[in-house]
């Protein structure tokens, strides 16, 4: 027995390559039609409802889910291809990405049948947007310190408290959130939280946008005041959310979005240095490409494990740790390498504008969706250190 983990060299099957062609053709059409500009990651069109519907119409949302809920029963590897092509093209995925990756699978596992029948097909059609209500003003990485209360009342629960840093809450139709239904016990401080489906845009919920250092308003404060949630919106076991959170993490943490967020600056650097780079640029690009290729091979390997029904939580944490640190450093490395790019490079302005945005984006990458410190704690547990 050794502590080392396996990342078997999974290859994407032929059907993925056909699908990749279809996705690329679709995105090229969207770009040509002016839906989005792939060279502008910092645009304000991230909420693109019509684009979302067209992606849904292609059958690329909820594509691994059962057909009776609107899914396509395709593989995680096929979903992987769609995700990475969308990300690399800088497509406006904000409206559907969370629902497709995370919220849908939670509903599939824990929601009552009639809720699944009502909501999942709408996710697949690209009609609705989800947010995730985890962090609170005094509980971020320490998820189980959440205090927002869900008090039992006739036919449901009354919610009072505040969620914060909630991405897309301002456009979301639903949120999947954890609320406190009981105090923690002495034996288990994680006890007492319950996962709920929350219908947004209702009285009792106030969404206050928060400005980010990028200049964007993507995350929010969400204040609940006597907000009513019916009993059938409880997801899974009352007081038992802690048992449900872990298996999702492998999906959330190992995807291509965990190392491709700032990828565009690498493409633009290659364009700027041209076909005959000097030694310094060539070496810098070579190393970055080698690192990128390695992470992608690890990430595809995890997708293969998910497809095989495994729960590679530690492997996924490694992918996110290495991937997010890399995508965080990438704009700075590209800036270094671009320092001697000719003033006459035709895309110089594009690269500079992109770097400006990527450098401002970078700090969040090792925080969102599980900080580096939390991930390393999970890996350490996997190594038997805690």
């Amino acid at each position: 027995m050794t502590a080392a983990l396996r990342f078997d060299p999974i290859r994407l099957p032929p059907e993925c390559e056909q699908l990749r062609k279809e996705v690329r053709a679709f995105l090229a059409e969207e770009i040509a039609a002016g839906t989005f500009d792939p060279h502008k990651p910092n645009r304000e069109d991230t909420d693109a409802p019509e684009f979302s519907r067209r992606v849904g119409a292609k059958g690329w949302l909820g594509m691994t889910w059962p057909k009776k809920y609107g899914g396509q029963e395709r593989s995680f590897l096929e979903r992987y291809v769609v995700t990475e092509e969308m990300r690399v093209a800088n497509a406006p995925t904000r409206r559907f990405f969370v629902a497709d990756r995370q919220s849908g699978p939670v509903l599939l596992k824990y929601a009552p049948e009639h809720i699944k029948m009502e909501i999942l097909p709408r996710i697949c059609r690209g009609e609705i947007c989800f947010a995730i209500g985890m962090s609170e003003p005094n509980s971020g990485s320490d998820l189980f310190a959440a205090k927002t209360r869900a008090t039992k009342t006739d036919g449901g629960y009354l919610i009072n408290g505040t969620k914060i840093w909630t991405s897309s809450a301002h456009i979301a139709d639903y949120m999947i959130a954890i609320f406190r239904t009981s105090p923690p016990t002495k034996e288990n401080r994680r006890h007492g939280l319950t996962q709920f489906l929350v219908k947004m845009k209702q009285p009792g919920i106030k969404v206050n946008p928060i400005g980010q250092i990028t200049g964007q308003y993507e995350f929010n404060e969400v204040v609940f005041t006597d907000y009513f949630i019916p009993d059938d919106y409880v997801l899974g076991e009352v007081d038992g959310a802690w048992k449900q959170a872990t298996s999702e993490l492998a999906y959330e943490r190992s995807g291509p979005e965990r190392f491709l967020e700032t990828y565009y600056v690498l493409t633009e650097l290659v364009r700027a240095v041209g076909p005959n780079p000097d030694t310094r640029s060539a070496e810098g690009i070579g190393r970055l490409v080698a690192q990128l290729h390695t992470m992608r091979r690890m990430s595809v390997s995890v997708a293969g494990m998910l497809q095989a029904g495994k729960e590679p939580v530690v492997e996924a944490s490694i992918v996110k740790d290495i991937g997010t640190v890399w995508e965080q450093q990438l704009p700075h490395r590209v800036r270094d390498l671009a320092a001697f790019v000719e003033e006459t490079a035709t895309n110089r302005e594009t690269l500079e504008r992109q770097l400006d945005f990527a450098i401002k984006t970078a700090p969040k990458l090792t925080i969102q969706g599980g900080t580096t410190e939390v991930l390393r704690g999970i890996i350490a547990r996997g190594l038997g250190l805690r």
Partner: protein
Amino acid sequence: MAESDNIVVETAEKIFADLADPQTINNDKKDAWQAPLWQALTEAGLPLSWVPDDLGGSGASLADGFALLNAAGRFAVAVPLAETMLAGWLLAQAKIASPDGEMTVVPASPKDRITLNADGSLSGRARGIPFAKAAKHFAVLAHGTGGVSIALVDAAKARIEAGLNVGYDHSDTVTLDNVQPVTLKPAPKGFDQTTMMLMGGVARSLQIAGALESMLDISVRYSNERVAFEKKISKFQAVQHNLARLAGESAAALAAATSAADAIANAKSFDDEVYLEAASAKIRCAEAAEKGGGIAHQVHGAIGFTMEHILHRYSLRALAWRDDFGSESHWAVELGKLVANRGADELWPLVASR
């Protein structure tokens, strides 16, 4: 890596466990363990794994041989197993039968070049040849006016200046001065020195990944034994996070190396995709050797800095292996040129093709 599922690797692991226990061989100042180990490996047909039966080898698949190299890296044994395997593989490309005994490959750097003279003799100087001193024969790749040839050369006919690499293994300078080879044949079409360097680089990548696996194991074990400030050092968050990073580097090295090995084992030719895989493996594994090895030493403190402790057997060899068959800097420049030459919009299609 989990228990092997492969008979070649199982055989090798059993031999290593019996005859190359790290602590035992580390205590053996005269290296008396090497001869019995080599004999056992030879009897099992492992050094000529990649040589087909009709050329005197045991005819294992490329994939099995790669897995064997990964296992050899986990034991970091100082015998020319990888070198003899590569030499046998190179000779087999030109249908040259492999002789018995230790072999190595010449050259072992993309910068060095052996020339095939008009009279059929070979000349040139090649630095950093692993285990040249121990080898009975060299498998040589040479350039002549008619193209690339592959030759079997009697090591006794070469001038060898002995040297040691960072890991205390022989890394010698070989000079051929109008040496007549035992056998010489043209290399197959499309086979060149770059092909040989990529293959050697993937072999070294697998060995580095194996050494990192062992470094992770012994570091985790040590952190669970060593007590400081009245608790096991594995309970300190700073140590845990360092070990988590080491696990990440080990995983990245293994993923890059096994992916490249899989790519070569299934490749019809050494195209851009295989080039990306093999060059990336060498670059990423070399980076991991530095970062991961550094953490393993940090966790061990002073004891890991002693000759008595086994850690250096892995950490220094992993660092030394970076230099063979093209350093990470070499491959990064070459890969960077390839990417730039293909153009910005062809980068993603290349990455996604794997």
